[in-house]
């Protein structure tokens, strides 16, 4: 049991550190020199808004539907366990 708990904690801490490192990598950097733009840079300049709007709305739907689904499964599992326990308690009485 302690081993599982220890592994779970290790996984959580590792994921947390990875998230912080990832966030740090994408932080805006202060500019210390100017360079001529490449065609790739110019493509970035014309970044279309549509994929960002769609991605944002998709995330809202996925997170909410996912949470509702997980919540219902957890509730169903507890109720199932309770029904099984009740049936087990009722058995000797019959």
């Amino acid at each position, binding site marked *: 049991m302690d081993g599982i708990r220890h592994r779970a904690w290790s996984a959580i801490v590792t994921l947390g550190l990875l998230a912080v490192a990832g966030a740090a990598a994408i*932080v*805006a950097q202060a500019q210390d020199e100017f360079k001529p733009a490449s065609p790739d840079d110019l493509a970035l300049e014309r970044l279309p808004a549509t994929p960002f709007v769609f991605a944002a709305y998709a995330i*809202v739907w996925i997170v909410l539907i996912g949470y509702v689904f997980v*919540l219902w499964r957890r*509730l169903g599992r507890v*109720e199932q*366990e309770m029904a099984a*326990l*009740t049936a087990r*308690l009722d058995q000797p009485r019959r």
Partner: protein
Amino acid sequence: MSVARQTPLVPVLLVVAAGMFAAAPYVIDSAPYESSMGLVQRIFYFHVPAGLVMLGSALVCGIASAIYLGRRRPTADRVAFAAAELTVVLGIIVLTTGPLWARKAWGVWWDWEPRLTSSLVTWMVFGAYLLLRRFGGAGSEVLAAALGLFGMALVPFVYWSVNMWRTLHPKTSVLPTLPAPMLWPVLWCLAAFIILYLALLLVRVRLEASRAALEAAYLTVEE
């Protein structure tokens, strides 16, 4: 011995919220484009209501935690636990839709400015609350309640951070000064998020009550 009773209000709230979320894109489409950001500003209509409900949820958790610390009422503890989990879920929405908006509007995914940083810290505090409840063992609910209070204390800092410090993030004055065609979709989405939040809070509290009943039943069996 029975699981906690399902309130008939939950299915009604869920159906209303689902209908409002389904209609939201049409309502948002009726709003005019913002002059400097154009289409990408439409992320605002989900990002801001999710953010406001997240902060409201942090307040619910804090108040319920205070009641639990003062009176040791199990219902208050269940409400605090449910609200903390919902704060984390809504925080995921806020902290992912925000960077998508920022990438187009500011040119960066993330900036360590006051609003973003304080929102992330608040989300991590409620994440810590959930970890404490999950792995803290017996008695962790008291420590978690203290953490819930601390999380609630961060809410005013998150909300007014944009007015107190220099920041890239739009200020709190944006919302009350919105013209009617832009305000109406925000209020629509805010109402949808609040209704869904209430439904999920009730279900989550019921789950905790059912778990408590199950634990009590196991104890009875062991005796």
